């Protein structure tokens, strides 16, 4: 008797709930399409022509360390001067991953985002990012030419953002534990590695591109031209390589602190890294070194993008111009540990050797770096006869690789 009543109550509750559920749910907005030419056609939007009066506030989504107001480190403050000069109060939301950034931008509450290449095309394709009129950003003219109108920040010659800073995913190793010193990514992909259990890799689906990059050299018959444009066969080969690597992995890292502590203790002795991690580990006397391997490397180049639904576009433009101004770009690059996008920034760094250490503007160096680009069905290497594996499939493959 009690059981039946109980069931009836549950059923009643469920009916009410389902009625409500159908009333609200997921969202779908206007989005882009694939043209008959196999190219990406983002939703039609025109960039702002002129700047209007500033709205008094701006909401940003950013990587930790990109929008600092001195509250965590009094010496790192480029928000207050901006607020004083422009009258735009800055609200910032720190995102932990590129995925966070995409979902935050989809909410439409934010005006601008410091998107990495594994997020930018997604934002453009879904119509979440608006084209940027670079004429309204005076400091854009001083940005390194090599960073302008690239696959990860533009579509069809239309800029969708302002470059912020960039860096390469290097190969780091413990000098006392790894010998001979590695010069190739083969060190992390070798099947019978003597460093089994102490190899580390970046914990993101985009890491598949590192495997593809290695296969570009070692298995030319696959015909990989761009590690972000993989057809099914090439993709499967990269996945197979990472499956094999998984047996040797000690841990995957995603935040810089985890990586530094692992290399300091020796839990990890070999694996991908960022320059800032190398510098921090060395400053704490960990015996590590990093190289740009012979195959080249993947890298990231972050872009400040505008939301298509920005409520404060004029303050957002002011921020875009501010963050790539020489002094501020120098400050943020030095604080975060990356190469600045503005070539004049190198005159303003506190450490005069900074730009050299991070190879800023070293085009020979960065010619060997493949910057993160979101894999989409339209192969970004220009092939039209095949469909490439889109990022969502990379995500699922990454789950299966980790097992």
């Amino acid at each position: 008797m009690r059981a039946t009543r109980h069931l009836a109550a549950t059923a009643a509750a469920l009916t009410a709930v389902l009625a409500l559920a159908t009333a609200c749910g997921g969202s779908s907005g206007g989005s882009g399409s694939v043209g008959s030419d196999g190219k990406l056609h983002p939703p039609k939007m025109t960039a702002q022509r002129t700047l209007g009066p500033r709205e008094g506030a701006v909401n940003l989504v950013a990587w930790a360390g990109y929008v600092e107001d001195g509250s965590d480190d009094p010496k790192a403050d480029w928000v207050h001067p901006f607020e004083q000069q422009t009258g735009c109060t800055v609200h910032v939301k720190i995102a932990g991953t590129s995925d966070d950034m995409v979902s935050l931008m989809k909410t439409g509450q934010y005006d601008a985002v410091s998107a990495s290449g594994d997020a930018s095309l997604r934002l453009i394709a879904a119509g979440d990012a608006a084209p940027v009129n670079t004429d309204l950003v005076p400091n854009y003219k001083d940005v390194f030419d090599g960073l302008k109108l690239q696959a990860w920040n533009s579509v069809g010659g239309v800029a969708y953002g302002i470059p912020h800073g960039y860096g390469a995913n290097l190969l780091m190793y413990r000098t006392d534990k790894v010998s001979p010193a590695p010069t190739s990514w083969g060190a992390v992909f070798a099947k019978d590695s003597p460093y089994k259990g102490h190899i580390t890799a970046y914990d993101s689906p985009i890491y598949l591109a590192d495997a593809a990059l290695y296969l570009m050299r070692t298995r030319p018959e696959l015909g990989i031209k761009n590690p972000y444009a993989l057809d099914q066969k090439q993709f499967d080969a990269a996945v197979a390589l990472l499956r094999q690597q998984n047996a040797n992995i000690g841990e995957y890292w995603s935040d810089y602190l985890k990586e530094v502590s692992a290399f300091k203790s020796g839990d990890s002795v070999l694996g991908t890294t960022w320059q800032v991690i190398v510098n921090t580990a060395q400053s704490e006397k960990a015996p590590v070194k990093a190289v740009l391997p012979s195959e080249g490397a993947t890298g990231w180049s972050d872009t400040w993008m505008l939301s298509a639904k920005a409520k404060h576009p004029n303050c957002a433009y002011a921020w875009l111009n501010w963050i790539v101004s020489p002094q501020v770009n120098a400050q943020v690059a030095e604080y975060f540990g990356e190469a600045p996008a503005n070539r004049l920034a190198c005159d303003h760094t506190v450490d005069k050797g900074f730009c050299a250490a991070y190879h800023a503007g070293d085009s020979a160096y960065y010619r060997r770096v493949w910057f993160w680009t979101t894999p989409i069905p339209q192969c970004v290497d220009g092939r039209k006869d095949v469909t490439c594996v889109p990022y969502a499939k990379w995500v699922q493959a990454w789950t299966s690789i980790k097992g």
Partner: protein
Amino acid sequence: MRPAGAGPVGRPGAGGGPGRGPVRAFVRALHRRPRLRLTLLLSAPLAWLVVAYLGALAALFLSAFWTTDPFTSDVVRTWTTANFREVLTTSVYWHVALRTLGTALAVTAVDIVVAFPIAFWTARVAAARHRNLLVVAVLTPLWASYLVKAYAWRIILSAGGPLDWALKPLGLSGPGYGLPAMITVLAYLWLPYMILPIHAGLANLPEDVLEAAADLGARSWRTFRSVVLPMVLPSVAAGSVFTFSLSLGDYIAVQIVGGKTQLIGNVVYSDITLDLPLAAALGTVPVAVVVLYLLAIRRTGALDSL
């Protein structure tokens, strides 16, 4: 428990008191209408928990039957069971789900074993004036940040870290990062959630029952096994609701000390932005497990001693 619909019945004529004014009149009016009182008591909580919370959950699980545009990752509302088929037929999801279930059970088992002596001591053995202080000692770590504790464990378990250092004289070394480390850390994080219910259960044991057992000649162990244990079992089950379900959903500590291991929470989390329907379908796995667990636990009466 009262029969349905009865409620505390006031005596006619006894509900007096010097009540004046609208508030008291209202209270008195209410007092004569138990149904109305119940409605007032329940309307706000029901609106919140059933309509808002369960509604949000149902909407989420409804979206598990939708799909995404591969091009934009936007949710497209076409009815499909493809996500559930994918979850059920992909072997990696099964492995991850089973690993997660095993982890949650292991964490719960570890916590029961560790929590029992502590709770027994704080509730029945320690001097009465120290008991409150001891409970404070158990609860304090709950306030230290979860993240910071997890990172502290990362140091403890690191190669050449404090654990290795302590075990070295014995010729041993720590487990390093991985599944055992993860179970240890999760057990550590949720331990207070197990100690507290057991402490409460033990503290509420009537002394005379224990005396009686002792008078009947039962030794410590015997009293414990046949008197204490059955009586605090619901408390243990109540604590396990926390340790089990918190472990089942964790995805942050796993990243910090789990090495290359992933749990169902990580998989759900990684799919949220690109494929919400798939994430929702994956999310039904821990939800189903937790609901089944709760239903099973309810039979022990544990939900009443949470």
